[in-house]
């Protein structure tokens, strides 16, 4: 991978253990090439992702957040991804309202067999975040 | 011995301008309709017209809501620690007698009992210019706590409104020095002094809310174990921190360390005994129930603090009444303490 600029986006990736994490693993074992911007955090289910985790990642300085889970209907815990879907939808829209571009928070459905899709998602998300630029929103010390 | 001077209201801007040469001058201002002490912009003195009192008391200038105690960085030899130095010379213009008394109260803990370096450096570098009240709120009850709305004991200079002029009382040497280079400050006449005394009497009479503070400590001691009574008193409190944070004499704080990789900082910030987890410890929380916390707040202010320092931890500024989300009113509680203890005892 060619380094285009000094700054590379740092993306916090919350991947659900049963589908997306396995999918990411498959991307690796299949030797699919994709940018290394996504820092993987394994969660038992995308439904575990509290919007607090998303905000905390942005607060710490991550440039983007990716939440990835099982396809609707395939959740290992029946409905966890449905809960995630509502939460993520509301979070994105509220963040946009307060001035954080909603593209900083991205979500995908990646199953355990979709190694190629995960590689594509990681690349696409990295490109999107690169376009928005580095996250300096929380940087300045007001107090 | 205090001597009296005076200044025309029209010259206040000029006076502040002179002081701005040596001090960072803070004056009352409004942001989003919230009155607070802010850095003077160099010309606006319109606060002389609207100012009654701030929402956040001037204690915030000595004990800020959040303060960095030190920052640290790990290096080859261990840790490099940096303590922020605050030697800025400040002048607070317009502090009310209740708030100034509050600072004196906090001094008892942060200066006399233990020397808190952060508080001390701000305290010794700040000059307090008091402004006598002219328009007390209906929530004010300073006169019941031994504070007159024109009290000058806790400031360096006291300004009293006598119409088109302010009478100035030089209370401390620091205050006297400040007037040395102010040409527009004149000697006050006997008539001016008499006028000020009339104003002081009138304003004291305008403080209509009163509490009989005789024997409060004893009354509180008597009903301390009355759980039913305190549960009723505490019923509508919602355990937020408004009353304690906005109280000129409250000073509880929490400390937290924040570390990211090999560097970080230690911060100090306001804490409140009203919060449920204020007394939480690993094995228990002695004040888990709301009635215990409400009892603690009332007793700390009117029983325990007097036991330790011979003065109530309250100056009657009334902010707790004015800004409480549920209009919990401490003067109502103090005026209706039960005469005797009832059956159910609890610690």
């Amino acid at each position: 991978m060619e380094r285009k600029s000094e700054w590379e986006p740092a993306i916090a990736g919350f991947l659900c253990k049963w589908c997306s994490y396995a999918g990411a693993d498959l991307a690796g074992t299949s030797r699919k090439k994709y940018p290394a911007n996504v820092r993987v955090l394994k969660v038992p289910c995308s439904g575990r992702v509290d919007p607090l985790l998303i905000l905390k990642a942005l607060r710490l300085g991550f440039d983007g957040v990716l939440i990835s889970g099982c396809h609707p209907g395939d959740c290992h815990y029946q409905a966890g991804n449905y809960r995630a879907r509502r939460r993520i939808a509301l979070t994105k829209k509220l963040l946009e309202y307060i001035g954080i571009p909603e593209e900083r928070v991205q979500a995908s459905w990646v199953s355990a067999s979709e190694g190629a899709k995960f590689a594509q998602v990681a690349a696409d998300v990295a490109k999107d975040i690169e376009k928005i630029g580095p996250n300096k929103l929380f940087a300045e010390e007001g107090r | 011995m205090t001597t009296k001077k005076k200044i025309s209201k029209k010259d206040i801007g000029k006076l502040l301008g002179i002081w701005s040469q040596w001090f960072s001058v803070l004056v009352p201002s409004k942001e989003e309709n919230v009155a607070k002490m802010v850095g003077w912009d160099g010309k606006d003195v319109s606060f002389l017209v609207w100012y009654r009192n701030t929402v956040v008391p001037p204690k915030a200038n000595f004990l800020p809501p959040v303060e960095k105690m030190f920052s640290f960085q790990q290096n080859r030899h261990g840790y490099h620690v940096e303590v922020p130095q605050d030697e800025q010379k400040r002048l607070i213009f317009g502090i009310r007698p209740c708030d100034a008394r509050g600072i004196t109260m906090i001094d008892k803990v942060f200066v006399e009992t233990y020397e808190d370096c952060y508080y001390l450096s701000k305290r010794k570098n700040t000059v307090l210019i008091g402004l006598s009240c002219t328009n007390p709120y209906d929530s004010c009850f300073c006169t019941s706590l031994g504070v007159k709305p024109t009290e000058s004991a806790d400031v360096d200079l006291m300004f009293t409104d006598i119409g088109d002029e302010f009478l100035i009382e030089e209370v401390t040497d620091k205050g006297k020095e400040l007037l040395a280079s102010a040409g527009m400050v004149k000697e006050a006449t006997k008539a001016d002094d008499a006028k000020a005394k009339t104003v002081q009497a009138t304003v004291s009479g305008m403080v209509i809310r009163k509490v009989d503070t005789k024997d409060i400590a004893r009354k509180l001691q008597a009903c301390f174990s009355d759980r039913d009574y305190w549960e009723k008193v505490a019923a509508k409190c919602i355990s937020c921190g408004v009353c304690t944070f906005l109280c000129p004499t409250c000073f509880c704080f929490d400390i937290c360390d924040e570390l990211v990789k090999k560097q970080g900082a230690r911060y100090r910030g306001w804490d409140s005994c009203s919060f449920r987890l204020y007394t939480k410890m690993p094995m228990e929380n002695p004040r888990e129930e709301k009635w215990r916390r409400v009892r603690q707040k009332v007793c700390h202010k009117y029983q325990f603090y007097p036991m330790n320092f011979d003065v109530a931890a309250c100056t009657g500024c009334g902010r707790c009444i004015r800004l409480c989300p549920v209009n919990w009113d401490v003067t109502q509680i103090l005026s209706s303490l039960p005469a005797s203890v009832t059956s159910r005892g609890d610690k």
Partner: protein
Amino acid sequence: MEQELRKEARKLLEEGKVDHIIGFAPGSLKFSTTPLITKEKEEVASLVINRFMVNNLAKFLTEIPGRVGIVAKGCDGRSIVSLIQDNQVVRENVVIIGVPCSGLIDIAKVEKLVGKDRDEIDDIALQGEKVTVTVDGKRKDFPAKEVFFEHCLGCEFSTPQEHDTLIGERVAAVGHEELNRKRIKELKDMAPKQRWAFWKEQFTRCIRCYACRQVCPACFCERCFVEESQPQWVSPVPKWQDNLVFQVIRNIHVAGRCTDCGECERVCPQNIPLRSLSKEMSDLVDEMFHYKAGTDKNAPSLMTAYEHAEAEDLFR
């Protein structure tokens, strides 16, 4: 109406149908009320119904034990239903005394209009679409919509739908869509960078008194996320970044349970426009999931429900 309310409350206590009555009593400041929580039937004589009964009494349902008779306006009535949906309150343990409300007067707005503080105003009288404010004996009239709370100006549920008794007749709210979302619209007209700068500035003033959280009936968590230290999600001290995270997350956590009672904004001692966040959140909830808080006690709460296909356009 007040007599009817006092009679009803007294009856409930006398007949042993409830252990506590929660309602509004006159406050110790002018133009204010204070919650009355009592077991004594004599004390219900001080219950009032007026244009200043701002408190959301549903807050107390999660801490007062036993059976409770509670006075409810439209908004707090929905908060009660929301608590029932969340299994925090058992419907059979609550006797809801509905009080139709066509709007409350925001004393802060009156103060601004007449340039005087609450204790300097002699009288505030509402007559139809007009409010007469008397200061120093002099009267001045204002249109009612200039002194009502913003959230009252767009109120869709002025009469509590879920109730056991209703005091007085059902009323229509002072509907005024435009004014209800005035500040939100102003914010949406700004560029994202400006919006961020606005909120950053607002939250620099926050002192983390938690009045907003404590006054909210939807915030009933035993341990709030700000009180966690392992891990620490937000700093316990009021740095603006953490103040902002706290408020944004609080709003997302109460999504679908916030009934726009406006208390959070009213109680903030720093006048931070919190409702500009909470109202936008409840609008998003309605827009995306066609859900309004506290309108159906048998409906699953927003975050526990789902449709098989929704919001798919946001997912890769």
